């Protein structure tokens, strides 16, 4: 099961395209590396992996790893080790929208199973799978830290909280139609104030 999770796979693959840093990223990299003491530049591997993932359609290809290794002058296997250790670096291609469903106890008690079912049905893909139109990749994850607003999901960088089947379907539909979504609580709560 976990082997198929895009973030928990030890098998890396090539994208087939050359990966080189964008101009913006080159600037940020300079800034990031300057935060570490001289000789410890390799510590910047995690922020660089994050930048690479952002630039490379939300996943880390072998080309990304090689570019990072070259940038930080470190062995490729060391970059690979870090990238494979953390579940939030995707080691295989994912759809445009990475839907992460929290399934840890608080969300589960508040009905995350139903949310999962709804999402799978609406996006037409299984857990750890990518939809045929490459719009969605659905994964189950452990606690994302918004327990008081469970059940919740994360789509790319945004949290959607206080979900039920209806609001979940609405969110997915909006994404499909390219309409904007309300971020955060779907019940109009501000942060985690009393409902």
């Amino acid at each position: 099961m976990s082997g198929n999770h895009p973030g928990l796979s030890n098998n890396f693959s090539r994208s087939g395209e050359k990966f080189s840093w964008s101009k913006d990223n080159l600037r940020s990299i300079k800034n990031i590396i300057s935060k570490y003491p001289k000789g410890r530049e390799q510590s910047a591997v995690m922020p660089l992996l994050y930048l690479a993932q952002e630039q490379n359609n939300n996943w880390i290809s072998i080309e990304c790893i090689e570019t990072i290794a070259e940038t930080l002058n470190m062995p490729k296997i060391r970059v690979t080790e870090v990238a494979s250790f953390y579940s939030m670096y995707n080691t295989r291609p994912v759809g445009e929208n990475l839907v992460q469903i929290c399934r840890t106890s608080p969300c589960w008690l508040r009905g995350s199973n139903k949310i999962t079912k709804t999402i799978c049905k609406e996006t037409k893909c299984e857990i750890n799978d990518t939809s045929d139109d490459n719009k969605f990749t659905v994964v189950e994850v452990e606690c994302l830290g918004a327990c008081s607003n469970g059940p919740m999901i994360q789509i790319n960088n945004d949290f959607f909280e206080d979900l039920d089947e209806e609001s979940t379907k609405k969110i997915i539909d909006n994404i499909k139609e390219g309409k904007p979504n309300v971020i955060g609580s779907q019940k109009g709560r501000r942060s985690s104030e009393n409902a």
Partner: protein
Amino acid sequence: MSDDLINIKVNQKEIQVDKNLTVMQACEIAGEEIPRFCYHDKLSIAGNCRMCLVEIEKAPKLVSSCTMPLMEGMSIITNSEKVNAGRKGVMEFLLINHPLDCPICDQGGECDLQDQAMYYGFDKSRYKENKRAVDNKNMGPLVNTIMTRCIHCTRCVRFATEVAGVPELGMLGRGENAEITTYLEQSITSELSGNVIDLCPVGALTSKPYQFKARPWELKRTDSIDIFDSVGSNIRVDSRAEEILRVTPRTNEYINEEWISDKVRFNYDGYYQQRIDTPYIKENQKLSISNWEESLKVLKDKLKTLKPLALIGEHVDLETGYAIKKFMSNYGKDNVECRTDNHAILESLDSYRFNTPLNDIENSDLIILVGTNPKIETPIINHKIFKAYNNDAKVFNIGENISLNYKTEYLGKSLSNLNNENLIKALKKSTNPLIIIGSAFLNKIKKIKTLKSIFSYADKYKVITKEKNNLNFLNPYASRVGQLIIGNTTNNLCEPFSNLKKDNFELVLSFGSEHIANEQFNNCFKVYFGHHGDDGAMGSDIVLPTPLYTEKNGTFVNIEGRPQEAKKCHNPIGSAKEEWSILKKLSDELSFDFIPNTFDQLRSELFDKHPILSDYHEIIVVENSTSITPDIEFEDCKAEYPVSNFYMSDVISKNSVTMAKCVEEIISTPSLLEKSA
């Protein structure tokens, strides 16, 4: 230095130890054995197997002794119930995912996990969940992987990074998904890669050629010496009946520590390929099978009339060399040559050996490689240079711009680059500089003045001082230093081989030297004494079979001048006879003076003549030579490296199937990276 000592108690026994040690090291000094998997004294401390738990008084929980520093007054308990229970718990976790396949595992019988499970293991499993299985990884033609057996001690990862200097191994994933692999499952490109097999405490990494061949208790152990480079690594040859089944290192802290090169570890299948098993005589341009009687009769007749020259190959031991010298002395002087590659020397021992004790290389802060590629010529010396490099030594390179596993500053192609400004600046700053002159230049030097200039240069920049001599000469051949000590060379200090005029000699006796096939001997009658049929044997008029180094006793002097013994492991193949006994027989028939009747007599005569050689394992001590010229002048010569392919540098390796696979998979196959580029 009482400051550095602290008082501790181990199992109530009071001892004084260095305060910089760890708890585990202190326990070892106290004589308590601590079980461990991940800790290895040549590698950095990882502390991830948790097997070395001990109790420390006043500490609430058990601590892992390998990672715990000592403190004054510490009281360590290694044998309490609590410790035992802790270790049993750790062992139970380690065994959860370890398969019960000891009966088909190559490590069985010499497995750390198996041994320690005898002490700390439970007799049954309480584990009811699914067991994990891990795909096997490709690590090249030498290392076999059965990764489900891996217990993630990371010794191999640390070895590759810290000792071999090729950061290609790593642990991917985490927790239950953790897997050891090489980067993209490429072959390990190190010349020392086989050592991960010895390091692996379980059967995850085992030897591919040795797979399913034998059990450790069936093997006969013979102590020997690696003769495939000049370092003289100590090896242990394991054989069953008349066949060598594997070669592993013996620990020698002064030379190879615990490592050996892949060549000696894996080329043993070549010992039995293409062997010359019986005498051959050339008839009608074709070698045909003969016998000892006939071939020696022909040789004897030739020896009566023709003037002979003896060539000494790279695998010839001292006793054989001495017998050859003794035999040839009946024909006058200057008729034995071991420097068949034109190796230039001065008279003194310090002009052809590695003068720095190998263990001191790591203390140098500036290393100059001059015409040498230690990575493929002498991997063990390369490892020591890598150690120095990790201690912040700067490495300069002169000759070809070779690729090594550490950064070097390339100065140029010719010897005169020794006068490079940057280098001189660095030399003046350095406190312990070291120069290694390799065969690539030594074999090309034509003027004695150049050699003397090198000495003057070393003297000028404090490479040679009263206390130390860090000017080193490196050649890759196991026989060379010893043969030069007993004087098996002509008086010609430079270009000895090209100057051997064929007019002066009519009969060439080659003892394993392939140079007999050179054009310069085309008109001579050629006799090849050797064990492998290659160019040398093919072109000869008589071929006589002789034993391999594992089939006879012999002394070799390593590159730093340390005599060591290689012992006989099994009887020679076919009708091979030891060289000295052939020469003895010929001497008797030619009524020469050749006293020794047995090998032991020969050896004691050798030691009587050269007492410095009799002290096994000790470096021969000599005064620093004073071959110094006032002006330093280097001639211009092109570097030509003696070894271009690590896996096929001699007749034995050339005949090894394993070595051929290495060439195919490691050298010839471009890595995935290059393919994509």
